[in-house]
């Protein structure tokens, strides 16, 4: 770990009013109008496609922010391969921001990215310094990730290295404030492997990453939570996330909001199923008062979506949010309107208690949050089910109960024994794993009455491997 004194305590900067430009300011204004901000996961290798994609995002019938998703070569720092693929015309699965010619990137963003249409860079790197420098050079100031969430699920970089890389990266971003810009950093901790992690641990990691960012001087953050398997449990989780952020993030110097990810695991294969799942993500965001939602498209289970498919998803999500809001208001139900509003869900839910216990246990390990996180994984206070990374203890296991809630089957050393009675888990078979991974896909596909999205589809996950 780089010794970063800033990690020990929050730099008690004077309570400055957050600037009116920038990513978070846009989200704040939308919130004041009662609108949910929706955002794609879009990334193309070619500057022309990327520009067209951003334009379509901006012009969609919805309150949108833009996304620049980077390709996997750039993510792992294989810049030669990123250059090679761009040169020989191979399809890249995202925009190669670090190696792209500066004038291409400037042209791509020109006249689009700005205060009325902020663009966020999404990457997935445990070595993000070059990416942070490149986005700053490109005039951008919003990105996402985290020392844990972009390490354990994303490759082979040791956690301690990722922690020090992310420390350096926050220190690249934070000083932008001195130039009158407000850099924004979103945690990816609410997603981790995308599926089969009980929500309490997603909430805990998301909160801890938000704290990590703010202790390094980033004062505009968002905390993520990815939709899981049970709407009720998800609502508890978002309420828990909001409560923990309220309790732990410095009240006067940090501006934060909550972002929901539409389901990040194996997606339904039918158009109807995929749309229903996205609608339920919009419902989750609306009922929990989340400020922003990142969507998925109807072709998620099979391939990278086109621009039109992305725009469709944005509009569907915005309409659904509007409908849910209208219906809830008509019924006199409480929709959490402002970050300060009391959550409509039981504040002391099981998810909150577990998440709070995890966060507290980690914070008590070391005054330096980076060291605390490294230590937490070493001793199994945090432990991601099915994560292959050697810095993950790999002893905790999850299961889906009959109500569709994600529960702990094995706790390993997670400090939750006083809250959870884990049932001892038999080793999982390949068929059982696919059944669990396919739960959401099956649930939503069975509600749909149409053909698989765009013709030939192969269910990624079904009960028995064929």
């Amino acid at each position: 770990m780089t010794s970063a004194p800033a990690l020990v305590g929050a730099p008690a900067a004077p309570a400055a009013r957050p600037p009116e430009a920038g990513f978070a300011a846009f989200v704040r204004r939308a919130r004041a109008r009662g609108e949910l901000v929706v955002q794609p996961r879009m990334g193309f290798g070619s500057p022309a496609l990327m520009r067209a994609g951003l334009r379509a995002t901006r012009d969609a019938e919805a309150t949108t922010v833009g996304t620049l998703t980077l390709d996997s070569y750039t993510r792992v720092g294989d810049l030669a391969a990123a250059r090679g693929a761009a040169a020989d015309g191979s399809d890249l699965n995202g925009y190669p921001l670090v190696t792209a010619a500066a004038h291409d990137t400037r042209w791509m963003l020109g006249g689009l990215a700005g205060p009325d249409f902020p663009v966020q860079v999404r990457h997935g790197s445990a070595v993000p310094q070059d990416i942070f420098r490149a986005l700053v050079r490109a005039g951008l100031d919003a990105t996402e990730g985290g020392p844990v969430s972009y390490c354990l699920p994303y490759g082979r970089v040791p956690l301690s290295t990722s922690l020090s890389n992310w420390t350096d990266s926050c220190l690249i971003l934070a000083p932008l404030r001195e130039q009158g810009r407000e850099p924004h950093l979103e945690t990816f901790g609410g997603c981790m492997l995308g599926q089969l992690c009980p929500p309490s641990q997603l909430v805990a990691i998301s909160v801890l990453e938000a704290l990590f960012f703010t202790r390094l001087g980033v004062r505009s953050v968002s905390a993520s939570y990815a939709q899981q398997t049970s709407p009720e449990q998800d609502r508890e989780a978002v309420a828990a996330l909001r409560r923990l952020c309220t309790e732990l993030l410095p009240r006067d110097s940090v501006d934060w909001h909550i972002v929901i990810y539409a389901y990040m695991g194996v997606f339904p294969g039918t158009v109807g199923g995929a749309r229903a799942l996205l609608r339920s993500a919009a419902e989750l965001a609306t009922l929990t008062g989340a400020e922003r939602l990142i969507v998925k498209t109807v072709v998620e289970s099979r391939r990278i979506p086109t621009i039109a498919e992305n725009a469709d998803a944005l509009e569907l999500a915005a309409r659904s949010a509007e409908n849910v809001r209208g219906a809830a208001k008509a019924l006199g139900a409480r929709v959490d309107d402002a970050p300060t509003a009391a959550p409509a869900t039981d504040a002391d839910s099981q998810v909150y208690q577990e998440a709070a216990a995890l966060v507290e246990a980690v914070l008590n390990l070391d005054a330096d949050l980076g060291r605390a996180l490294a230590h937490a994984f070493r001793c199994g206070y945090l432990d991601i089910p099915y994560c292959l990374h050697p810095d993950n203890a790999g002893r905790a296991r999850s299961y889906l109960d009959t109500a569709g809630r994600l529960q702990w089957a094995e706790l390993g050393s997670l400090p939750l024994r006083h809250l959870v009675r884990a049932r001892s888990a038999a080793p999982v078979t390949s068929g059982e794993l696919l059944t669990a991974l396919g739960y959401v896909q099956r649930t939503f596909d069975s509600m749909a009455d149409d053909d698989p999205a765009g013709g030939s589809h192969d269910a990624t996950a079904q009960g028995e491997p064929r």
Partner: protein
Amino acid sequence: MRGVTTETPPGALPERTKPLVLISTVASDAHTWNLVFLQLLVEELGHPVVNLGPCVPEELLAQACREHRPDLLVMSSVNGHGFRDGLSAIRHLRAQPDLDPFPAAIGGKLSTSDSDDPERVRELVEAGFDAVFMDGSAAVSTFRRFLASVERPTGVHPPQHRQWTVPLSGKAAP
């Protein structure tokens, strides 16, 4: 995953009765559920497995092949870079003078479009893959048959230990 990896009793040199399968992905691919699934499947069919985890650089793959002398290499990629990276990885392996040719297969979502391009499949085979499993409903059952057809091992180079001998993080092996 450590919890499900075949364990060798301490001290015992494992008799290789079934072909040893090395599971890997390409250098840029972070997805692991596919690897966990394949490991479980192959182990259930009775094979010892070494799973290299995500984002495997070519040099690490070659080193793992030297160390474990697998009877079969199974590569899986779903991030859309599988064609390009898989091609490069198998060329690298086949160019190693000290690695005798052994069967290798690749499968998953190999490109960013959802159509199989027969031309690119041929390229992979010409470069040294013995089988290419394009994503589809038949992929896993065809793969099971393929696995059953893989020759019995020669058993000349039994591995010392099979559990995460190739460190996932690139750190020194324990």
